[in-house]
């Protein structure tokens, strides 16, 4: 089981994962760099520190589950899973190419160690609640973590699921919102504002924790608080920066779904050195 708790070490891994994900997307010539960079510390902290899982035994019954509901940011998930040993690092650059296990959106048919096929936004919380209920029925200690985009919260099913999770007190589920404030068409506040977002989740019966989504130690504390919360599911609102770590990508809606050129990649890798 992986357990790296030193924030500095995790931050180093996060930086490396950013480089890997950007190389993958550049090689693929398409993909979603902005959200992959905003979700980095969340995914790294979960897989390397928080979650109980065993890459040598991916179907271990008691494992914690991870669902990337914002499936388009899978380059970061693939990079971290490969780092953990679930899948080969050498073929990460086949992302989005014919026959690759690294599909454009997560696909369990090609990568069975994934917990869910995602890509159609809005479904992850429901899936997590189903996994959470199954664990409760079996008295299994497994927890389920689901990462959502903020734009994704515009989907109605999210709020059906939020209502269900709060009412049924599915407290072995933790939702993490990668709150980077940008979606494909622009800024979330201009397209369909979510505020007051913390109040929304609270009013649906969730324990809300707000955190800097790029602070590893902050995330570690948030996950400890979420794990210790009984009687309510938790929602971690992680304030993040879209394109984090690459100056010309940060807060730029363009990089929601545009692959960097080779030249841009070179500049980005220099910044992430």
């Amino acid at each position, binding site marked *: 089981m992986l357990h790296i708790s030193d924030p500095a070490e995790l931050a180093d891994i996060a930086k490396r994962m950013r480089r890997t994900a950007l190389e993958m997307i550049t090689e693929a010539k398409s993909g979603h760099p902005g959200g992959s960079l905003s979700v980095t510390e969340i995914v790294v902290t979960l897989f390397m520190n928080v979650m109980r899982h065993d890459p040598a035994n991916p179907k271990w019954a008691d494992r914690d589950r991870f669902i990337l509901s914002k499936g388009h940011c899978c380059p970061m998930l693939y990079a971290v899973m490969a780092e953990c040993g679930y899948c080969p690092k050498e073929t990460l650059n086949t992302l989005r190419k014919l026959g690759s296990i690294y599909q454009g959106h997560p696909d369990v*048919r090609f990568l069975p160690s994934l917990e869910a*096929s995602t890509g159609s936004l809005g479904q992850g919380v*429901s899936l*997590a609640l189903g996994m959470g209920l199954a664990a409760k*029925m079996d008295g299994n200690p497994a927890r389920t973590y689901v990462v959502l985009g903020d734009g994704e919260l515009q989907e109605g099913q999210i709020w059906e699921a939020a209502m269900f999770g709060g009412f049924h007190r599915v407290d072995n589920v933790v939702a993490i919102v990668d709150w980077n404030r940008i979606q494909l068409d622009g800024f979330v506040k201009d397209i369909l504002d979510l505020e007051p977002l913390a109040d929304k989740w609270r009013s649906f019966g969730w324990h809300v924790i707000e955190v800097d989504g790029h602070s590893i130690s902050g995330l570690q504390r948030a996950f400890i608080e979420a794990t210790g919360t009984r009687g309510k599911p938790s929602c971690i609102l992680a304030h993040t920066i879209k394109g984090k770590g690459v100056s010309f990508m940060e807060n730029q809606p363009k990089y929601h779904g545009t692959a960097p050129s080779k030249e841009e990649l070179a500049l980005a890798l220099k910044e992430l050195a």
Partner: protein
Amino acid sequence: MPAVKANVKEFELKLGPATREAFGKALVEVGRKNPNVVTLDADLSKSTYTAGFAKEFPDRFVECGIAESNMIAIAAGLASGGKIPFASSFSVFAMNKGFEQLRVTAAFPNVNLKVVGTHSGISIGEDGPSQMSIEDLSLACSLAGFTVLCPADENAMIQLMHAAVDHVGPMFIRAGRAKAAVIYDATQRFTIGKAITLVEGTDVTLMATGLMLAESIRAAQTLATEGISARVVDMHTIRPLDRDAIADAARATGAIVVSEEHLVDAGLGVRVAQVVSETKPVPMEFVGIHNTYAESGTPEEILDKYGLVARDVVAAARKVLARKGN
């Protein structure tokens, strides 16, 4: 397998329980047999008959409220956690409101989820077309990898429910609200994907699914009085279709009528026609709902008005026989 009856006149077709009621009964049976069976409903458990399961197994029943999309994806999550979920609602809500979830969380990852749609077709009667599911078979067959079942009576539903629990993979099971004529006794065995020949015949084959099976038997009884010998085949499995049974019917009788309580554009009939054209092309006719939505009324009135009674199957048989050999 020999035909169920030697002579079509032997079918009495007395009214029995609705297939939704049989589903509820079978659900409790399979729940007792397999502790992994769980049930989800969306505020219709008294109508879908999942209430019996909820009473016996409260810890394995998930009431989702009126939120079908969420229900289907929760069911998929339960399946990923090793459960065998039966998610139930009126067919029109489960399939239409849950379709995207069925596609992404069940079909595409090949998850072991069963969705059961009750109140299918137009025979629900007074509630009217917003509650009537006339496209559910089409939607279910649009989900790659889904098995699609449409039992015709109580015993068919019970047998197929047991088969459903043993079958690993996503599945849609169609049930009706109206009382269903008794066709099978409890000794009849069902295999998913294997059609059942109810009675042999040489002039024409009447294929049907769900409540149209009894109407096809009645039609065969009428045709017999005119000296026309009709084979009657129960297509309880819409997918995978029993290609051999279809090809054999085409070869042996040279004409086929397909009847279903569903839009004719997109249900069983067109799927059978595809197999007929690939194996042994013969004239075909189709009984079903033609490019419209029905209305309120008693089930009997609606089925009569929209052309889903034995009379319509007989008319289609005469029509196809007139074309046969031309």
